[in-house]
């Protein structure tokens, strides 16, 4: 795979600098180098990386290391805090009081049309706006059709004129139409264009002057590379961009463009596109983005979370039970719930550096199984949980009915319990022979 996990590498370095009381140029050097590579691999702009790492270094040198953290963890903390700060401190709410125009702009294929429909849907639902979508992409074949279809699917009206190529005129007419019909949110979906295309950029300027949108949102593909800052700068110079939308964040791109553009232009990031469905848009979370760009699960947070969640006494009790061979279905449930308390499986996996990539689908599958198991065990009587061997067909059917699942699900839980119990026995055997049950 192209990217090694930053977390793993950092862990190794952290071990080396363990036990030093102060952050110094020497003990930070190797870490900063890794961080630098990782940021570049996340498509953070070269100049931004340079600036960023040197400002982190400046801040960190001489700082006393908190007693609970190693120098490595300390610097990670500084870096993450700094990233979050950079990604969005101010209040980034959209300005949508009264009749509001939002103009969507961006390169070809960045996701403007889909995002337009998503925002219309979102603001109608959350802010009670009455939206009108306006098709201003008169260039790409069938772009207007795409907007019409999307509009229909969410019951939002679309203003368009397939006969005209005069987008300023269409925009003007749309605005008049909206005023007349009582719409209070107009979303102008413009054609994708290159930032260096003078005449098309002028066209956007003209539209903007004509209808004076309160918000001009630049849609940026999360997968875009180093050049995204040039794109954003150009659009901003010509149009005064009021916010960014990061699209396609549901993929595995790390989205360094977000940081680069925010840092170099100051334009706030307002939304993230997280899927192809209309609801798949959310307010931008700087915290999540920072972790994503660093490409590491937040090891610190995991440690904190795990300490809170796992009741040590409870854990000891379970281990003792396992070893004594009286591992009941109840014990299994307790164990599972402890894991559950750590957050969703997906959340946990994300926290663990070096964890193999697991797809969303697989993740959901695992989560679902866990839920089912819980439901099955909860539908059993006390006696059944302690002595699962009494479970015969009629009981199984009752349990299945009780939890709304199939008898096969009940069997699966019983089998799982059997296997775990078997494993415990083997472990016990190994312990007796003086072997470490966890290998090596």
């Amino acid at each position, binding site marked *: 795979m192209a990217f090694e996990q930053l977390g793993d590498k950092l862990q190794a370095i952290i071990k080396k600098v363990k036990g030093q009381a102060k952050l110094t140029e020497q003990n930070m050097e190797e870490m900063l180098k890794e961080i630098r590579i990782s940021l570049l691999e996340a498509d953070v702009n070269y100049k931004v990386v340079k600036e960023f790492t040197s400002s982190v270094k400046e801040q960190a040198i001489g700082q006393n290391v908190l007693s609970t953290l190693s120098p490595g963890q300390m610097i990670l903390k500084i870096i993450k805090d700094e990233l979050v700060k950079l990604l969005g401190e101010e209040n980034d709410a959209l300005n949508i009081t009264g009749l509001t125009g939002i103009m969507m702009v961006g390169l070809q294929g960045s996701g403007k049309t889909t995002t337009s429909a998503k925002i219309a849907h979102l603001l109608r639902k959350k802010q009670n706006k009455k939206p009108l979508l306006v098709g201003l992409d008169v260039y790409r074949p*069938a772009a207007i059709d795409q907007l019409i279809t999307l509009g229909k699917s969410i019951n939002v009206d679309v203003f368009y004129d397939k006969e005209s190529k005069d987008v300023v005129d269409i925009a003007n007419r749309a605005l008049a139409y909206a005023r007349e019909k009582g719409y209070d949110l107009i979303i102008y979906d413009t054609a994708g264009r290159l*930032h260096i295309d003078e005449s098309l950029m002028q066209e956007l300027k003209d539209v903007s002057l004509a209808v004076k949108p309160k918000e001009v949102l630049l849609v940026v593909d999360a997968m875009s590379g180093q050049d995204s800052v040039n794109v954003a700068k150009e659009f901003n110079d010509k149009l005064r961009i009021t916010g960014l939308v990061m699209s396609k964040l549901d993929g595995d791109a790390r989205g360094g463009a977000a940081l680069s553009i925010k840092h170099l232009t100051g334009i706030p990031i307002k939304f993230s596109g997280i899927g192809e469905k209309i609801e798949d848009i959310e307010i931008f979370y700087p915290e999540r983005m920072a972790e994503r760009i660093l490409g590491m699960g937040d090891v610190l947070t995991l440690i904190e979370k795990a300490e809170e969640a796992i009741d040590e006494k409870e854990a000891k009790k379970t281990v003792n039970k396992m070893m004594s061979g009286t591992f009941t279905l109840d014990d299994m449930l307790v164990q599972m719930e402890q894991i559950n308390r750590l957050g969703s499986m997906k959340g946990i996996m994300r926290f663990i550096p070096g964890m193999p990539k697991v797809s969303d689908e697989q993740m959901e599958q695992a989560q679902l199984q866990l839920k089912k198991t819980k439901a099955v065990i909860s539908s059993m009587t006390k006696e059944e949980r302690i002595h699962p061997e009494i479970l015969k067909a009629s009981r199984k059917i009752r349990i299945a009915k009780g939890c709304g699942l199939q008898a096969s699900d009940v069997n699966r839980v019983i089998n799982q319990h059997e296997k775990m119990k078997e494993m415990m026995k083997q472990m016990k055997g190994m312990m007796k022979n003086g072997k470490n049950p966890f290998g090596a």
Partner: protein
Amino acid sequence: MGFFGKLKEKIFGKNNKQSDKYVAALGKSRSNFADKLNALAARYRKVDEDYFDELEEILVEADIGVKIVMEIIEETKKEVRLSNISDPKEINETLVDKMFVYYAKGGDDMDTEIKLNKDGLSVILVVGVNGVGKTTSIAKLANLLKKEGKKVMLVAGDTFRAGAVEQLEIWANRLDVPIIKGKEKEDPSSVYYRGVEEAKKQNMDIVICDSAGRLQTKVNLMNELAKMHRVLGKEVEGAPHEVMLVIDATTGQNGVLQASSFAKATGIDSIILTKMDGTSKGGIILSIREELGIPVKYIGVGEKIDDLIEFDLENYIYGLCSTMEEE
């Protein structure tokens, strides 16, 4: 003549018929590599670490992966030491050499010909993530093949995105080539089946299949694509004869993950690098070449129907290196 020149002659041996067009099309990204590197050379009287830092910046900002950049710079440094080069100007050629070799060693196929079925119907499958320009590239490719005298049919297999079928249909009408359309939300495999059947009936030379854009992390959609690929294989032996992955030149490091996932699902024979008329350099194709050996065959340089040209490594590398900012 440097190593670069010699290698170029050896590999390309032919005259590049499109080179004039290439120069014109890549005006924005190509331009004055020499000028800019010379400007850099002028500011540095001798080759030192700062000099290499600036070189590194030029390469990284072209979206060439940071590891490859570090390797190329390392190689160049070595060369500088061995040959005792102290004049920055001499480094330029060395650098271009290194990059050229880097791409060349990624695989033997420097050819830009599309693989076609010699005795019968050829099938081309076009895949990629959302918004890279698959449909437009297909129209352009159909135009090229039609000009070569081939009978081309399009199959609109993107039944998911609103307006996608209409988009391809408009192009088909403009080009006057037949098109088989999928109905809304129809299983794309069944659209392909109908398309290929129809192409056989009408005695077509080439069928080009469009597919819905999909992020490479969507397991279900990637499985669907693998199935579409299999259906084509059942219909015509050896089909699809060429699977083309469309990559947007603005793509950053995620491009490698895109290529490897799509390669797993359908195999990838070549890349169409789109949107090269902007200021992006598409340096990610070097990483893709290194990791997966996939060659680029075409680049898209505009929105017009004939804005698709054969990939030319030499021109590309010169274009790639022209990011240097004047100070």
